[in-house]
C-alpha cells in the first residue's frame, strides 16, 4: 500500500499503483470484495538531476505535479484480484514562462494472482505474480518535459512479490518488476538524444526494472508501512548540460516512503489513506517529495464466503 506518484519525469515509468491493495504489495482482496476510492497526490521538486549533476533551475523554480486518481480492486477469488486505476494529472512551475499541462494520463490494468501460500506456526509466506499493462487514455504530448503529464508510452510488466507476515501482523514485503515500454511518437520529424540525431518522429523507449522492500503492520483494515525502492531504466541518454529532459532519458531513482491506511472506527469499510515519499537518489529526475491523501470504500458483494 504505497503510493508511486514520483518525479514528473519518472511518473509514467512506474506502474503507479496507488490503489487500496496495490499492484506490488502482498495483500489480496477477498472474493467478491471491491475496494474503490479516490486519491490526491501532490508531487513537488525544486532540485533535479541533469544527468548525474544535481541542480536547481531558475526557469522552473518548483515544479508541482498534482494527480487526482480513481481506482478499484476486485477480488474475483481469494487468489485472483483485478486492479484498475486512472489518474488525471496537472503540472505547473513556480518560475519561468512555460505553461503547465493537464489531462487524463494513463489507464493501468493488472491481474494479481497468489500462486503460493503457506502457513506455519509463527506466520505465513505467500508469493504473488502480477501481469500489468498501462496505456495513455488521451493524446497528451511527452515532448514538453518536465511539464508533460506522462511519457505517453504503452507498457506491459511482469512482477513477482514475496510477502511474509507473522501472527501479530508485522510484515515484510519484497517485490520486483520488469516493464517493457513501447516507443512513443512526437509531433516533430527529428530529435537528438543520447549523442545522435534521428530523422524520425518515433522514439524507442528503453525498458525498466523496479524493486522495493517494505515493512509494517497490518491488523484488519489498518495498514502502516515504510518502504524503500528503486527504478532502473535499461538504456537511454542523459539530460545534457542546460538541456531539457527528453522522453527516453535514463530516469533512475531511489526513494523512501511511509504509508498508512486507517479505517474509520465502527465504519471499517471506509478508510482514509495518506502517504509520504521522497526521492533520495536519482538521474534525470526531480528530487520529488510526494504527499498523498485519499479515501477508499470496501463494497461487499453478496455470495461471498465469510
Amino acid at each position, binding site marked *: 500500500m504505497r503510493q508511486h506518484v514520483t518525479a514528473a519525469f519518472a511518473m509514467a515509468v512506474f506502474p503507479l499503483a496507488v490503489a487500496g491493495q496495490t499492484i506490488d504489495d502482498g495483500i489480496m482482496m477477498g472474493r467478491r470484495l471491491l475496494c474503490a476510492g479516490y486519491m490526491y497526490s501532490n508531487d513537488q521538486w525544486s532540485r533535479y538531476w541533469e544527468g548525474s549533476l544535481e541542480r536547481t533551475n531558475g526557469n522552473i523554480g518548483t515544479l508541482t505535479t498534482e494527480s487526482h486518481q480513481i481506482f478499484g480492486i476486485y477480488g474475483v477469488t481469494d487468489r485472483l484480484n483485478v486492479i484498475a486505476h486512472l489518474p488525471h494529472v496537472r503540472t505547473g512551475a513556480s518560475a519561468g514562462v512555460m*505553461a503547465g499541462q493537464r489531462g487524463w494520463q494513463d489507464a493501468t490494468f493488472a491481474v494479481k494472482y497468489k500462486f503460493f501460500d503457506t502457513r506455519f506456526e509463527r506466520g505465513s509466506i505467500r508469493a504473488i505474480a502480477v501481469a500489468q499493462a498501462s496505456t495513455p487514455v488521451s493524446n497528451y504530448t511527452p515532448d514538453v518535459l518536465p511539464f508533460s503529464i506522462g511519457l505517453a508510452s504503452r507498457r506491459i510488466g511482469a512482477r513477482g512479490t514475496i510477502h511474509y507476515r507473522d501472527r501479530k501482523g508485522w510484515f515484510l514485503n519484497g517485490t520486483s518488476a520488469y516493464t517493457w515500454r513501447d516507443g512513443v511518437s512526437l509531433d516533430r520529424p527529428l530529435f537528438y538524444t543520447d549523442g545522435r540525431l534521428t530523422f524520425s518522429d518515433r522514439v524507442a523507449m528503453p525498458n525498466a526494472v523496479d524493486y522495493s522492500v517494505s515493512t509494517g503492520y497490518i491488523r484488519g483494515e489498518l495498514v502502516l508501512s515504510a518502504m524503500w525502492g528503486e527504478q532502473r531504466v535499461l538504456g537511454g541518454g542523459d539530460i545534457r*548540460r542546460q538541456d*531539457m529532459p527528453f522522453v527516453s532519458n535514463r530516469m533512475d531513482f531511489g526513494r523512501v516512503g511511509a504509508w498508512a491506511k486507517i479505517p474509520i472506527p465502527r465504519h471499517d469499510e471506509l478508510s482514509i489513506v495518506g502517504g509520504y515519499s521522497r526521492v533520495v537518489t536519482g538521474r534525470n529526475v526531480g528530487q520529488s517529495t510526494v504527499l498523498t491523501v485519499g479515501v477508499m470504500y470496501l463494497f461487499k458483494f453478496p455470495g461471498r464466503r465469510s
Partner: protein
Amino acid sequence: MRPLFLLLCSGLLVKAAVPNDADAGAWQMIVLTSPTQVAVAAPAAVNDPAYLAELTNLKTAQSQITPRQRAAIAYWSKGGAIRWNEIMMELVSRYNLPPAPRTDDSYPAPDASNPFADPNFPFANPPYAARAYAYASVAQYEALKAAWHYKFLYNRPMPSKADSGVQALRPSSDVPAYPSEDAVMSGAATAMLQLLFPASVEEIARKAAEQREAALLSGRASASDIAAGLALGTAVANLVINRARTDGMGAAGGNATIWRQLADQTTARGEIAWVSLESPPRPPMLPLFGRVMPWMMTGAEIVAERAVPPPSTSSPEMARDLAEVRETAANLTRRQLAIALKWSDGAGTPTPPGRWNYIAQPYIENAWFTEVRAARAYALLNMSLHDSAVACWDAKFAYFNPRPSQLDRSIRTSIGLPNFPSYVSGHSTFSSAAASVLAHLFPAGAGAFGAAMEEAAISRLYGAIHYRADIEVGKALGARVASYTIRFAQSDGGQ
C-alpha cells in the same frame, strides 16, 4: 532474364541521361576569383606505370573489401553533399545548447580556443547555425566548381572505366575522376568544420577519411584522384575560412555596454525595451549579428530592406496583438500545440535553418543531381538562410521589441521562449526565404514549401512567443532577402 535485362538497360540509360554539368567550372564563383585560383597539376596518363600501379593496388583492395567498407560505400552513395549536410545537422543539434549560469548568476561565453570546456564551443544557436550551414555549403560548392573545371580539363576517367578489372561498386558516371569530387568534399568539409565545430574534429576527420576510402574502393577514384581532390578541397576551404575570420562574427556577441545601450536607446524612443525573461537574466543572443557580412546582399542592402518599425508598445495595435497571443495561449488546442512543437526547433535541434535543409533533402536526392549541382542547391538555400538571419537580427536589435510574456506576465508559452527581441519572427523570416529559394530550384515543390512556411510561421503564435505582426512582417522580409539569392541563381551559369 530478358525483361530484367531490358529493365536494367533502361535504368542505365536514364542515369546516362543525367547531365554531367560539364560547364560547372564556369559557373559564377562566390568567394573564389576563378576556378583556377588553386592550381591542380595535370594527372599522369592512364597508361602511365604509376597510374597502372594505383589500379593494381585498387583491385587488390577491392578483393579484400570488408562488410564495414561495403556499408560505407552504401552510406556515401546517397551523395556527399547530402551526407555532409546531415552531419552538419547533427553537429548543430549537439552544440545547440545555451551556456548554463554560473553560481554567481553570470553566464560564461563559449570559447573557441577551449571548445571542450563547459560551456562547449560553439553555442550553435540559429544565427550561428545559419552561418555555419552557409559556410560549409559554400566551401563545398566553390571547391566542386573548381574540381569540375579540372575534371573536364584533364578528362581522366574513373578507374572502373579505365580498367575493366576494377569493379564499379557504385553506378559509374561519365564525370572524369581527376580530381575526385568525394575527396574534394572531404577536404573542404574537414577544414571548414574544424573552424565551426572544433571539439568534434576527430569525428569529422573520421567521416572524411571514410568518404575517401569509399570513393577509392567503389572504383570511382584512384589514389592520385583522391590526393588531388583532398588538396584542392582543403585549399579552397582555407580561402573561404579567410572570409569567415573577418565577417564580423567575432564581435556579434557584443558586450555589457552595448547591451545597455540597446535598452537605453529603445527607452529614449518612448518604447518598452526588451528584457530577458530567463532567470538569471541572460544577455541577448548575438545582438550584433545583424552586422555580420551577408552573402547575396551588401550590409547597406540589409539596412535598406529593414522591416518597418513594429507597432509602438503603447499603441492600440500592440494591445490588440497582445490580446490575440493571450487568447491563443489560453485556448490552445491539441492541434495547435502539435504545430508549435513540430516547428519549435529550439535547443538541441538543427535549428530552423537546419529544418529547411531537412525539408530540401528529398528534393535534392530525387533530382539525381551531380555533386556540384547538389552543392549549388545547398549553397543557395543556406546563403539565403544566413542573409535572413542577418536581416532578421538587424531588425530585432534595431527595435529591441519585448516578447508577449514580458508585456503580459500571465502569458505562458508552450515552447521555450527565445532569449532575444520579438520583432521580427526568425522562423517566419527563415521559412519565407527558404521556401522562396526552394520553390525557385524545385518548382514542383512550391506548394509544399509554401504550406510548410505558413505553418512554421503561425506556429510561433501558437507557442505564444510572437505577435502576429512579427510573423507577417518577418515573412515579407524573408521574401525580400530571398529575391537577392534568386536573382543570383537566375544568371550564375548553373540555372
